[in-house]
């Protein structure tokens, strides 16, 4: 058990898990958008995708937060600030870490809409808001991912 925890808290593993769960969350929300637009199949698939998407974003938040608090400030931030791209921290890291604060409430709201089921979603005119909100949450996830790439690149090659 100790060795599993040790491996899971290695820096590259933390970054990989943070990114992996974020990508999974984005893909699952895109799946929700597809289910809502196609309006076919059963409700369980859409609910599963929304539930798993919310869980993935929560995991990305916790793992990314642990890495950020424990390692980023001490080890990565000084490198970026001394690099040719200090704005990678000053703009992109600061924006990323604060926009992420409200991604999970957005993903949970998407989940709660899907729990209504297709018939209730249609009856309550919620199909369009669901598509837009799920797309927005996935889109913000992609933007945050792009910011993460900029930050990593500046630490490696700046």
């Amino acid at each position, binding site marked *: 058990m100790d060795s599993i925890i040790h491996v899971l808290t290695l820096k590259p593993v933390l970054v990989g898990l943070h990114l992996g769960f974020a990508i999974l969350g984005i893909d699952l929300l895109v799946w929700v958008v597809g289910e809502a637009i196609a309006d076919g199949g059963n409700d369980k698939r859409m609910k599963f995708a929304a539930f798993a998407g919310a869980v993935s974003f929560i995991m990305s938040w916790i793992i990314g937060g642990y890495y950020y608090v424990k390692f980023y400030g001490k080890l990565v931030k000084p490198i970026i600030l001394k690099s040719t791209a200090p704005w990678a921290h000053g703009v992109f890291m600061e924006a990323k870490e604060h926009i992420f604060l409200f991604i999970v*409430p957005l993903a949970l709201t998407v989940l709660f809409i899907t729990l209504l089921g297709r018939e209730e979603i249609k009856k309550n005119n919620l199909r369009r808001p669901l598509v837009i909100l799920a797309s927005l949450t996935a889109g913000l996830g992609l*933007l945050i991912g792009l910011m993460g790439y900029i930050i990593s690149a500046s630490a490696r090659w700046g």
Partner: protein
Amino acid sequence: MMINKLNKTQLVYASAVGAIAAVIFAVAVTIIAEESPGFKASLVSVAGHHWTTKSIFTALVYLLVAKYVYWFTNEHKSKSVVQALAALISFAILGSAVIFLYFVWHYLK
């Protein structure tokens, strides 16, 4: 199952309002902490790191507002739910833009 006993439309409305509150809180606490070193230090004193405190408080704002709206406001019909979701979408876009542009300004000043 417990989820079947919930008023699911009211839950969506409550979550949307809670999420709007979370967006507003996240934007406000971010900017205030950057402009006030004393406030930022007080955030650090709560949970050891300012970001951890902001995360916890944002989550609490979402949960408490959503819970209050779900339990203590009148049942909301579909038109209000659509409006709440439209407002959430607008606030999320605006909140993200404000945060990004604030840090661009903050870096350049």
